[in-house]
């Protein structure tokens, strides 16, 4: 009886050790991590991206619903093809990059968690902060856990990767970005995409 209990305890401990949450760092040395944005405008839609992604996410492959984390994008890293448009976008009238250097999303709760193999989909509720205004948002995300794949991406490093993809929509009015103004020139609705990979070295 004692032996059976000891074996069971050992197996449980081993399971807990293997399922330990890992922290993934989303600062990307390869510069691939990016957040994309798209707004409708009269002449052509405004399509841009931001590469200044950073942040950490703690993820447990055995319990993806317990994931917590915060992803930050440097406002100054936002790029659009036209230089005048970019200047206006980062100016104090629009995003005010000098005063609000970061855009962030901090997760609070995962719901509707479904895992199939290495991939987990869920609805993440958290706080989205833009131009100093914080709003609670629920965003559908897809997370892919790539065990022992860090070495393929970054030579001479062992560890795991966590890929996060998300698509969601915000209204600039909700974040005090020229509310009610220029809606015929710059759409109120902004489509956002997140394509990022974090590393957890061993």
């Amino acid at each position, binding site marked *: 009886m004692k032996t059976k209990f000891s074996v069971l305890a050992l197996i449980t401990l081993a399971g807990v050790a293997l399922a330990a949450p890992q922290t993934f760092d989303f600062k990307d040395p*390869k*510069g*691939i*991590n*990016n957040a*994309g944005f798209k707004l409708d405008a009269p*002449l*052509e839609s405004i*399509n841009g*991206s931001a*590469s200044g992604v950073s942040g950490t996410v703690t993820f447990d492959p055995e319990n993806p619903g317990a994931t917590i984390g915060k992803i930050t994008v440097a406002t100054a890293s936002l*790029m659009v*093809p*036209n*230089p*005048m*448009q970019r200047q206006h976008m980062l100016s104090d009238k629009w995003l005010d990059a000098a005063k609000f250097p970061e855009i962030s999303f901090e997760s609070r709760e995962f719901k509707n968690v479904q895992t199939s193999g290495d991939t987990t989909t869920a609805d993440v509720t958290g706080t989205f902060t833009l131009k100093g205004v914080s709003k609670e948002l629920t965003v559908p995300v897809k997370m*892919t856990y*790539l065990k022992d*794949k860090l070495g*393929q*991406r970054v030579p001479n490093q062992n560890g795991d*990767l966590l*890929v996060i993809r998300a698509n969601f929509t915000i209204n600039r009015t909700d974040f005090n970005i020229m509310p009610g103004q220029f809606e015929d020139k710059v759409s109120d609705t902004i489509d956002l995409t997140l*394509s*990022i*990979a974090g590393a957890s070295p061993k």
Partner: protein
Amino acid sequence: MKKTLRLIAALIVVGAIAFWAATGANHGWTKTHIPKKIVDQTTGLEGVQWQDKFVPGVDFLAAALLGAGILAGVSFFVRTKSK
């Protein structure tokens, strides 16, 4: 002088349209950077690299036409030298 100004104006218009057409006839705003997609083989993620490239747009054409129009307009105020 009149003829010179009008000739320069015409050259500006023709040159601007030719340059705009040769660089892809962009019907949007002028671009100084263009996005290039790069795919990370390990994660399948699509990243974006911004490359320096001047692509004239409709605002470039408008500026060229405005400049040519000003030159042509000025030519009407230039006195012809009497012989």
